């Protein structure tokens, strides 16, 4: 059957140009730190690769730019940390389901990673507990991981618990990995910061925020707006208040800016996307930021 991974790949090529995808791959290839000088082989230069990694002599011989690949950087571990609470089943900024965007983002990065020969694992978590899925490289494995995400995120799923998810990862994930945290506009507290500091000590962490719906936007003729956490409707009268709308937008922007700043202080790169079309450019921007931050 045409699986989730296939869909993700199709969407990637719909939403991004070939060039962007190349850039994305290059960006991914360059985010890993800790090169050894254990030279392994050469591969074709991909835009986004570090210029200093180019093997100029080999390039001169070959006629095309080639970069050195080192053993240390050859096989990385990408861990997808996906919040699978019911918050993620809610509406995103674009009106799509946040779940679709999360699957798209996780699938896109995972497929790039496997093309690079890296292994991908998945850790999902909500209030009902967290669960880890082992590393793998094949498409079938990725498909299975994406299905886990797809099945767990439902409107009647347990509530979201990013803290529990981070805690599990901090305790269980010992292999040095690149962590992609996929969550929504969660407000980061001191406890989050403490756990992230611990994670940051061992892993590379990149943080992908899937923007939540604008609560004050008029949805036209669509049904009542309700909060998934408490299943309580937000009265239309309140949502149409103009002064409140201004204040809400201000506060929402402030929250986004605050969490990005706090994450940056911890050395964690973060990016916020609002729709599936945002995923590829968003991931690229995220990796680009990450690469710059390392320098």
């Amino acid at each position: 059957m045409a699986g989730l991974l296939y869909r993700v790949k199709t969407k990637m090529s719909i939403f991004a140009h070939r060039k962007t995808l190349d850039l994305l791959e290059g960006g991914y290839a360059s985010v890993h730190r800790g090169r050894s000088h254990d030279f392994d082989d050469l591969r074709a230069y991909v835009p986004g690769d570090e210029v200093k990694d180019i093997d100029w002599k080999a390039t001169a011989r070959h006629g095309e730019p080639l970069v050195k690949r080192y053993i240390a950087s050859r096989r990385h571990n990408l861990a997808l940390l996906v919040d699978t609470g019911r918050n993620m089943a809610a509406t995103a900024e674009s009106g799509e389901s946040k779940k679709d965007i999360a699957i798209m983002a996780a699938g896109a990065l995972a497929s790039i990673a496997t093309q690079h020969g890296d292994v991908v694992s998945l850790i999902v978590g909500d209030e009902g507990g967290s669960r880890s899925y082992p590393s793998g490289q094949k498409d079938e494995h990725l498909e299975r991981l994406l299905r886990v995400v797809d099945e767990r995120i439902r409107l009647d799923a347990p509530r979201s618990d990013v803290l529990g998810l981070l805690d599990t990862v901090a305790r269980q994930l010992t292999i040095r990995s690149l962590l992609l945290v996929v969550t929504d506009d969660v407000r980061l507290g001191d406890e989050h910061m403490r756990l992230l500091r611990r994670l940051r000590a061992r892993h590379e962490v990149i943080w992908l925020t899937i923007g939540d719906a604008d609560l004050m936007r008029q949805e036209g003729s669509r049904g009542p707006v309700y909060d998934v956490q408490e299943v309580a409707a937000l009265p239309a009268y309140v949502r149409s208040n103009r002064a409140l709308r201004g204040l809400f937008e201000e506060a929402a922007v402030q929250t986004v800016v605050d969490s990005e700043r706090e994450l940056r202080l911890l050395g964690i790169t973060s990016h916020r996307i609002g729709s599936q079309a945002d995923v590829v450019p968003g991931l690229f921007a995220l990796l680009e930021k990450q690469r710059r931050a390392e320098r």
Partner: protein
Amino acid sequence: MELIFWWMPLAAAAVAGGGVWLYLAWRRRSRARLQRDGVPVAHSERLTELPEYQRVLRRYRALLAGVLTIVVVASGVGVLLASRVSSVEVVQPQSYKRDIMLCLDVSGSMTDVDAKIVDTFASLAKNLHGERVGLTVFDSSAVQVFPLTDDYDYVKTELTTYRDSFRSQGESGLRYWTGTDLGEGASLIGDGLSSCVLGFDGDSSSKRPKSIVLATDNYVNGSPIFTLKQAGDLATKHDVRVYAIDPVDYSADGTPDTVATQLKDVVDKTGGGFYGLSSTDTVPAIVQKIDDQEAGLFTGARRLVVSDHPGPLVVAGLLLLMASFGLLWRVRL
């Protein structure tokens, strides 16, 4: 104040109870409905934590409470309207649908009294409702000046014309005695009264009270076809009461003379009355007495009058309805 449909509030209460029950059932299912039709969003605390949100929510709740109150009150008003708030009264309507024939002896001695009588009735005419007035004058023969009519403008005009004629002894305007001197003799009371009795229309089955105001001094000069007694019997047979106004020539000892007594006997027999005109009794006072006596005779049957009073309720209901529409629009329900 009573309710005609006393069961309506009970029915309304039952309906309201059913409505509340349905609402509760609906509410139980509304959670599922929300999840089916609604737009799920997360992190609503971004909004609900704002102090402004709390303020707006409080206002929203106040508006909702207002709407609820108005709707409940409006429903109450509606129920009251539907149960027909009414007042119940027992009324005893006076019968104004009388027929009055003025029967005036226009022999020379009577013109003064006649003038006063027509003057009184002319001034009464504007207050009449449903009564019919006719005028017949007689001396040796009777003339019907106008038949029973409720055209009060016409009545007043005619009476005024006759009053002026009486006052001026026929010198100016109309000669009041025209046509009354065709018979033999003068002041043929019996014939005059009979003419008046036969002047009522309809047969004996007519329910309208009939009365005659007869002004005469009962001094007969000649031989009438009907004696006074026969005329009285005719009146009794036609169910007509005769009220006589007589400028009694009290003799020195203060008792009415025999002709006056004779007249009194006749009119008393018809169920009417005899009023001697003395210096203390003016014509208007006598007419008033006659009127009172008649009114006492003919009051309508006691009736239960139930009248609805929807006016204030309709206004209140409309205003409340408009207010509730306004508020509903405001809270966007």
